[in-house]
């Protein structure tokens, strides 16, 4: 009984591509008004910000002071006014967004790679492995993350790379926990057992089957975590450990202008608004994704 001796000629033809889960989620996302608003906002922000090298010259527009034009109010030509070095606030916001969002995204990616690995191993194998990983993460959880970041940054020098690393380390424990919880839930589902019954290795099960299922409900959280990280950078900048000058960064701009908020509000207000808008957009998209990927929304 080695092979099924069915002589039926296989049809071979395939039906036109059906929409995938993601396409499905996309359809649902498109129907979600606030998510669409968020996506439009986010897309606009990203396009405007990331195309800034096309219309801004870093040396001349972004970092070059004009000490004759300091703290000018918004006017023609300098739509959002100038900062205490006479630099165009708008140009710095646009450029700074590349850095703020870039750091947030990269830190999130780093922490989700580490977090997913740890969470998946911990959740899948359970037992002692789980115990060791989780207890170590508990330790990191018990140190307030801002403090941890400050210590790390002050040990490693506040370069952008180190900021990303410090932010990522700060958020690894919570990411791992989320992933672990998902993995635990998915591991308990029958399909994992079904795949094991076919002889798949643990590696294959984790990478091909569990992680894709575990991550998609978390994607919205990851998106929102980016927002949290951008806020964390601004907190670090407040204590002077954020992105180092002359690079503009929203948090740093926001906190450096706070001294004159009563006179020249625009120096603080506009970076703040940019930050808030981005975070709002990210959150809206994240919320939308969560709903779109919610299995209960499936038929």
């Amino acid at each position, binding site marked *: *009984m080695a092979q099924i001796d069915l002589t039926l000629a296989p049809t071979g033809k395939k039906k036109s591509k059906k929409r995938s889960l993601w396409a499905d989620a996309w359809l649902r996302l498109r129907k979600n008004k606030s998510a669409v608003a968020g996506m439009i906002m986010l897309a606009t922000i990203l396009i405007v910000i990331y195309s800034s090298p096309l219309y801004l010259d870093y040396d001349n527009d972004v970092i070059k002071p004009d000490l004759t034009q300091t703290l000018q109010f918004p006017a023609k030509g300098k739509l959002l006014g100038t900062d205490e070095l006479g630099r165009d606030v708008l140009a710095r916001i646009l450029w700074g967004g590349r850095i703020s969002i870039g750091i947030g995204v990269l830190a999130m990616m780093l922490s989700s790679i580490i977090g997913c690995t740890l969470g998946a191993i911990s959740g899948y194998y359970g037992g002692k492995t789980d115990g060791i990983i989780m207890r170590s993460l508990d330790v990191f959880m018990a140190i307030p993350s801002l403090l941890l970041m400050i210590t790390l940054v002050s040990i490693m020098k506040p370069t952008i790379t180190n900021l990303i690393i410090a932010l990522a380390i700060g958020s690894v424990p919570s990411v791992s926990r989320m992933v672990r919880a998902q993995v635990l839930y998915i591991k308990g589902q029958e399909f994992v057992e*079904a795949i094991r019954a*076919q002889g798949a290795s643990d590696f294959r099960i984790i990478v091909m089957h569990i992680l894709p299922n575990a991550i998609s409900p978390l994607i919205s959280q990851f998106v929102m975590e980016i927002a949290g990280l951008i806020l964390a950078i601004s907190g670090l900048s407040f204590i002077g450990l954020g992105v180092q000058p002359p690079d503009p960064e929203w948090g740093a701009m926001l906190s450096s202008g706070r001294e004159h908020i009563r006179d020249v509000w625009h120096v603080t207000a506009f970076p703040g608004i940019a930050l808030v808008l981005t975070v709002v957009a990210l959150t809206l998209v994240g919320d939308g994704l969560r709903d779109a990927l919610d299995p209960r929304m499936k038929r």
Partner: protein
Amino acid sequence: MSNHYIEVKNLKKYFQTPGGNLHAVDGVNFTIDKGKTIGIVGESGCGKSTTGRLMTMLLEPTEGEIFFDGKDITKLTPKEMVEYRKKIQIIFQDPFSSLNPRKTVFHSIAEPLEIHKVYATKAEKENRVYELMELVGLSDRFVNSYPHELDGGRRQRIGIARALALSPEFIVCDEPVSALDVSIQAQILNLLKKLQLQFGYTYMFITHDLSVVKHFSEEIMVMYLGQMVEKAPVKELFANPRHPYTQALLSAIPVPNLKKKKERILLQGEITSPINPRQECRFAARCSFATEQCRKEVPDITDLGGGHSVRCLRIHEI
């Protein structure tokens, strides 16, 4: 060593729980002959699925041996195990949760072929997948569908196609139809039966629905709290149930037939906890025939001949 195709000896599985050892399967013995079906019935939580998982080595038994074609599969090395997996497959109760929600029908069915690298070329693999879909009656327009887009009947067909992919010899069917509608249920039962006739599969059929199991199998084992309480060929069991639990179970089935109404045996009380069970007949708490003795010793299995055996102390009195 006997000449049975499958022989299970004193199979035990205890789970460690915070409350103590949970005796999920506690010393089960049975045999299955090639091309035959054994039905396993019993209350929820009596260890049916655990037995099924042990048979497919998804769980390590705490104790006992499982001989498959004369080889004890509990002692295989991981490498040998991979080979063995090709021969033993399992179909699960809930076709939705047993399919990866993020894989298309094609990939779900192709998964075992990929794991074992059975086919050298993509085309061969694809052909095999279409062949299997045809076999279980799935139209090929579903190759790119996701489980959530399909109904229960089709999902279960994917599960079956996947189980058949590696041309197994023995299939554990763990309540394959209980999540399905009656009309679909019949389609699937027919399919399984047809496949058995066509390819000579050996089935272990787990269910709590006695009418289904009667329709489907040659021999039935009734389990109660991890133990076998009665085992007999189908006809014998239905005609002559000996264990009080089997009797109650049989009488409890609501029959959609107005003429054949029978007297119910109603069980009182709740199922006892399987955690650290005492030295007693596990059914004693609910048994109307139970005596002091039943509450003090674990009954042995009595062989009544003709493949009929019962675990009851008072077998000869009731």
